[in-house]
Structures are given as structure tokens and as C-alpha cells.
């Protein structure tokens, strides 16, 4: 099984924050949504997902709550805190700047000759 492409350091955090900014989700839902939303390009392994979520929780950017799902099973739902929302905005801006810069560099025409 091919390993999902490694996320650039810190990228996973911003993706998770973004997903949770839309609505509170449990771990399983996050992994499915991420896959679907990225057109099956981004896959996060369980071994990265849960530690990342817990780290965000300890940092205080997200909080967790046990709630029943639609089919009445208990699941741990994560949601964004206020400081998490602010952190997400900062990180999205950072990412935009970085990706813009990368695109600029990659868009350079190769010299002919």
C-alpha cells in the first residue's frame, strides 16, 4: 500500500482546522471528508490524524465532546474554539502566501537556448 503523500510540515493542522471550521466532526468523518474534498488526493493515515487532533486539543485550538452520531453511536466530535478560528485564519493566510510564492517560482519560463 502506497503511503499517502507526506504533508508539508504543519499543513495537516491547517487542513484539520479548516474542516472543523465548517462543522464539528468526529475523526472518521474528518478522514473521509478530507479524502473527498481533495478529490482523493489527500489521504491522512490514522497514525497521523489522531495525534494531530489531540495536539490541537491540548493547544486549545479545538475542543472535543462525546455525542451520539446520526445512527446513534457514541463518537468524539471535535469543534473549533475561538482561538482556533483565529489560528486557522492566520495559517490559511500563511499558506496562501507560501503557495503563491511557490507557484510564482514554478511559473518561471525556462530560458531557451
Amino acid at each position, binding site marked *: 500500500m502506497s503511503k499517502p503523500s507526506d504533508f508539508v510540515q504543519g499543513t495537516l493542522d491547517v487542513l484539520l482546522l479548516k474542516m472543523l471550521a465548517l462543522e464539528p466532526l*468526529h*475523526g*472518521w468523518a474528518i*478522514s473521509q471528508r478530507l479524502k473527498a474534498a481533495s478529490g482523493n488526493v489527500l489521504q491522512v*493515515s*490514522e*497514525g497521523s490524524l*489522531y*495525534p494531530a487532533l*489531540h*495536539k490541537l*486539543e*491540548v*493547544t*486549545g485550538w479545538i475542543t472535543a465532546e462525546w455525542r451520539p452520531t446520526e445512527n446513534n*453511536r*457514541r*463518537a*468524539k466530535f471535535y469543534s473549533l474554539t475561538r*482561538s482556533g478560528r483565529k489560528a486557522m485564519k492566520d495559517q490559511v493566510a500563511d499558506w496562501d502566501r507560501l503557495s503563491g510564492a511557490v507557484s510564482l517560482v514554478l511559473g518561471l519560463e525556462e530560458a531557451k537556448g
Partner: protein
Amino acid sequence: MKMERWLASLMLRLQSLFRKETVENDFDEELRFHLENQVEQFVAQGMSPRAARKAATKLLAGVDRQKEQLRELWQFRWLENFWRDVSFSVRLLRKSPGFTAVALLTLALGVGANTAVFSLINGLLLRPLPVPHSEQLAVLRIEEGGPQPEYSFCTPFFRGLENRHDVFTDVFAYDPDMLQVQGHSGNENVPGMQVSGQFFSGLQVPPLLGRTLTPEDDRKGGSPAGLAVVISEGFWERWFDRAPDVVGRKLVIANTPFTVVGVMPKRFRGVDPTRSPEIYAPLSADPILDAPRNHIDGGIHSWWLTVMARVKPGISVDGVNAALQAVSGPILHDSTEDGNYIKGEEKAHFHFSAEAGSSGFTYARILFRKPLVAMFAMCGGILLLACLNLTSLLMARGAARERELATRLAMGAGRRRLIHQLLVESLLIATAGTALGLVAAPLVSRSLATMLMSGSGAQGVTLDTSLDVRVFLFAALVTVTATVLIGLVPALQATGGNLNEAIKDGQHANKTHERRRVLPRVLMASEVALALALVAGAGLLVTSLVKLYKSGAGFDPRGVVNIAFAMDKQPLKDDALMQVYQQLGEELSHQPGVKNVSFEFIVPLSHRGWNGRYAAPGGSPKLIWMNSVGPKYFETMRIPLYVGREFGWGDTKASGLKVILNQSAAKQFFPDRDAVGQQILNPGEKTSYEVVAVVGDAKYRDMRSPALAAAYVPIQQDTQEKPSLNAVVRVEGTQTPLAGAVRSIAARLVPSIPAPVMTGMDEVVDGSLGAERMMAVLAIFFAGCALLVTGIGLYGTLSYSTSRRTSEIGIRMALGAQRSRVMGMVFRENVLVAAIGSGAGLAVALLASRALGSFLYETSPRDPWVLVGSVGALTAIASAASLLPALRAARIEPIAAIRCE
């Protein structure tokens, strides 16, 4: 915002720390949920349920392994490490019980001594009064050009100040006094306090029952409802059995009925930390309570009050002093018509001033501040010594553990972690040592307080030395300091070396070790120096105390008992009273074991005094100290009678005034003549006395000052109507049966007086030397401990370093070194340390002894015998401590030593 997040995170971590189980269960459940969903997805994709579960489990297999990482994320890493260090250290300490015991005991000693003396200082000097806003309280004083301000006020000064409410909300005065209260079995002496009208409103402590005294009560004859008193909770319990209807009941004090109007709670003890009054009576009742004396009519001749005030919030010390300065002149002028007195005071720049009064006021403070500070310094010395000793021992042990530590460093333990662990070890020692010390401290401080306060000369004086927050804070501070002192240096030293060297070299002694052994030697030398200074100090204090005792009081205190009769409130007076005394003396002299009986007004060395100006005919008046004494007084006290005769019962007022002079007084008045048969005059009272004898000098007020010029008059010619005299009884053998006899004789002859109080003259002498005795006792104890601790330190470090040199010594011996030379080599190590330490210690002792000089009596702070003796004692200890390791080294078998490498 950031703070909030940090706090939330801290909470989460803390929660997880205490609910480790839940966190893990939580995670398990979260993963299980994930697994179920994954299985369902695989099934939906067409896998068989079994295959789907297998695949999903495989996917999640790695996640389980991350639990450890997760746990670390969730918990305080250092806290776990801390616990691990603690349990490791406990195991290590238990493995070397000898070291641990020495460490704990020396530290407990240092901490215990410090805490004990600190709680004395706390009780006497620091503890704030348990009243609201004690920081607003001020003690008022009088400055009149002397080296120290005066704290005693007369009634007119206080009444002048009482209603100055510009800077004060309340101004109040008090006077501690024994009150004679009528009980079921006759009169009893109860410690009380006379307080002015604003005393309770100034202190702001509400009563437990009833009301407090008000300015209404502080009037002649009391308020319209009569004379009132407030009692303490303790007295309510003892006297009224906590009767709920105590308010309104009567107490007969000094034969006068007073009404109890309130009860004060236990924590309220007035404003003098050395006293716990049981009855608070109005100041204006003094003529009744103190009868036949009257301090109020005494005007500017009765200096009996201490004055305090509560300062209005927001007014500075300068503001208070300026206001006091402004009223000083007018109050002085209103107080007396005596123009000469006013002129004299104005010349001396008389004015009132204020000082902080948050911890109340007591004279004991003025007496004992210096000895206490000196003792605190000694305690600090012993604590430092204990720490130095432990540092050296830990360092020596660290050196022995070199290989263990180096191996752990090599295996990747951070230096920081190792230092942590070593510091935890010293923290454990320090904490356990402090705890031990704290257990012992209250006992020690209580007995020290008793010894100290017996010297203050007043009855019913105690000092509350109980542990409070301040003492605990102090102990905690000591612990932390001790931890760092004893732990950091050895930890840095032990972990700072070169790994390779340490592992490779093991036990071999080589150059790097030599270099690293300089620090321990410096430490041990300073320990020796400190010990020497302590021993020398103790030697000086003891020499001085012995000299004080040897100097003698001028009388023989052994076997003499004073029995105090309080005659001032009973009906008989003058000659009738003298007959009672004569009868008392007669009956006492028939008691078994009694050799002589006489009477005296003032017990020598009790800090009480009476003086007057007398002159030889044609000479100028001189101040001499007075006492009135009964027949055969000098025989009873064994004061030599040089010329003349003792007083007799026949020396009455009618037979002409007589006086006996001591040698100093005789020389002062009649330098070139025989004193006996001469007259001395009291110019103030225009009276003349015939000198009937000259007796030996006896100490009057305290042991330290030389005997004062003194004169004795017969008790029958005392100007007081109802003198309260002390019977002086010389007893052979045990004094216990006398106590019962005295009680029954007094009850028969003068039933209305309180039970007479018996005090041994020995106790009086000891009491007058209370501070000196306490210092000497503590100093001896500390010196002994210092010697012991230093001995242990020298022995410990030497035996560690010798054991590390076992193989080297083995090789030396294999190469033919004599056993005696090996012994000498080991022995020399300590000799050097001891010699350098003694040298430094002598220098320190000489410097420090200057500070001790003011406590010494006829002893030079450089007394050569003391200094030589101290060096001798240390040399002896050092030799003893070095002998054992040296002997052990000499007994090393070369083969065994080399093989063990």
C-alpha cells in the same frame, strides 16, 4: 486570550494527569469507533465481514503504538520525571542508612535550632497583634534628649493626648497589673490589665459576649451603672465555668464590687505579647485596684502607662510625628505647675513621637533584642555548618558515584536530568531534615522562652512561641536554601567531568582527581573554621557566665526562700501590721529545717528598685539605693556585718530613725571617718538617720553591674502604711514542706490575703541571668554539635576519598610502602585541612568576638585560654576523625586491593 488558552491547556493536562485511565479509555473508544466505520466501509465495498475486520485492524495497528506518544503529549513530563527521581533517591538514601541518618540529624539540628530561635524572635519582635488592620497601630513615646526614647507615660500626658483625634482615630493607655480577686477560698491574684476608655475601640476586636469597656467606664467611680470589667475567655471558663449569664455578674476586686460587662475571645491577648491578662479594668479605677497607691494622683511622678494609638488611614509617620510635635509643648505645660520640671524638659527638647505598633509593645523587647539577634547569628552559623558538612559528604559520595553518573551520561541522559536527580536527592534530605527540626523546634523554643523570660523580672510573663505562618515560611525558605546549598555544587561537580576519563579511570587517582579535590578541601576547611568560631564564642560566653556566678551576689542565695505577702488590701496597718509580721516570722522559724527568718521589702536582683538622695552633714546629696529589712536580715542572707548591730524589733518609729549602710555607701558618705554613729540626711524630706552598722556590698538590681551604694532601713520605720514584705527564710534540706506550712500560717494570721508566693533565691539569681544563661547553654550545645558534625564530616570525606584510593594504596604497598607511611599519608590529608581551617577560624573568631564583647562580663573577647582551648578541641576532634580511615588504609591487603579493580 493567550493566557486563557494556556490555562485551558493546563487544566486539560492536569485532568489527564489525575485521570490517566480515562484518557486512555477515551482514546481506545475513539479508535474503536473509527475501526467500526472502516469495517462498514470495507463491507460496503464488497469485502466479507471477516476480511473487512482484518484489514481495518491492520490499518489501525500502528496507531495503538502511538499511545505512548499521546500520553506524553497529555502529561507533564517533568512531573513524571520528578516522581521517578524521588523514588530513585529514596531507594539510594535507604541503601546508605548511615549517610542518611547523619545528613538528616545534622540538618534537623540546624533547622531545628534556627526555627526555635526564630519562633522566639517571631513571638517577641515580629508577630502582628491579632486585631484588624494592626499596621495602623502606633506606640507613642517621649523623646527628652536621652540616648533612648522613654515609653512610660504619666497620667496627665496621656489624658492630654487621649482626645487628639486629628491624626488618630483612637488613643489608649494600659498598665499590666496583678488584681486581687475574691474567690471561694479567699483572695487570689489574677493577672489583669488596666485600660483606658478607647482601648477596645482602638483595637477593634468584638467581644465574645456582652460589650467592651468604653470611655464612659473610664471615669472616676465608673459609668452611672457602676464599675465595670471585661474578662478573658480563659477566665470565664476557669472562674465562671462558661456560664452563659456571666454578663451582669459581680466580681469583687480589691474588696470592691465590679460588674462583668463582657467576655473577650481567646485569640485576644491585649497588646503586650508577653502577657495574657484575664481581667481588663478601667484605668480610672487605679486608686481602688492599686490601693493604697494611687498613680492618678501621682501626676507627673507616676510613670506607669504605655500609650498606643490607631492612626487614621492615609496619614504618614511624618504626619503623625509633626502633629505630636505640635501638641507636645501645650500638653507639657498643662500637666504640672512645677516650673522647674517644665524648664528642664524644654531644655531637653521634650516632645512626643510615634513608632510602628503593629506587633504591640513589651519591655522584654528592649531587654532581649540584642541577645536574640546574637543567638540567631549562632544558629545561622550552625545551619551553615550543617550545610557545608552535607555538601562535602555529598561531594565525596558523588565522587564515589562517578562511574555510575558517567555511565548514565554516556547512555544519553541529559546533564540537566542528572542534576535534577541529584537536586531531588538533596531536596529530600532537606525536607526530611526540616520536618524533623520542626517537630523538635516548639519544645526547644518553649524552654528557651521560659529561660529567657524568667529574666524579665516581672510576674506572670510568658511568651507565645507557637508555630505560625511566618515560622513555616521561614522553615520553607531554610529548606530551599539548604537544598541549593547542599545540592547544587556537588551536582555540578559530579556531572561536569570528562566522561571518558571517569569511565576509564575508575578508581585510579590521577592528576584530574587531584584538581577536583581542591573544592572539597576548601569546603571542609571552612567548616573547621566555622566550628572553631562557634566553639570559641561558646567558650567566651561560658567563661563570662562562670565569672558572673563566681563574682557573687554579695549574699549566699543557696537555701534561701523568699515568701511574698500581699498585705496592701487587708485592713491592718502600721504597728499592728508589724506585729503580724513578727508573728509570721516567729511561726516560720519553728518550721522544720528553718535556720533563720527575716523580712525585706525588695528582693535583690529582681529588677525592682527604690532610690533616694541622701547626704552626709555638710556634704552634697548622692543617689543611693534603698531597702527596708527586718531583724537579723544580714545573718539570714549571710551578708557580712563589718561594724555595728543588726536591726531589732525594738527599732520602731518612736525609737528614732536608723539606717545601715553598705561599704560603698559608707565610703561615699564618710570617706575618712567611721560611719557608725554618724547621721545621714534626706534633704527632700528633711529627715535624719543614725547609722547603726556597715555591712558588705551586695548586688542590688542585677548581677552584671557592680554592687551599688545602698542603705537599709528597718521595716518598722518604712513610710508605707501597709508594706507588702517578703519573708526571707534560710532552710536546710528540702523546701517542699515549707510551702504548705506557709499557706496555713498565713491563712490563720491574715486570712484575707492571697496565698503567699514562694520563690527560691537561687531561681531569682538564675532568672536575673536568664539571657546570659540561655546564650551560654545554646552556645555550648551548638559548640558540641559543631565539633561532632565537623568530626563526622572530616571522617566521612576522608574515608570516601581513601576508599577511592584503595587500589593506589594497594600498589604502593605492593611496591614496599610501610604501613606507617600509608597511615601518615592518609592522616596528613586532614591535618592540612584542619590546620588551614583553624587558622581561618581564629581570624573569624577574633573578628566576631568584637560583636560578642558587649555580652561578656569581665572576659576579654581575645581570652587566650579560650582560643587555645578551642583550637585544642578541634585538633582533638580532627585527629580522632582521621585516625580511623588512616588505620583502615594501613590495613589494606595489597593483593585484595589490586584484584578488586
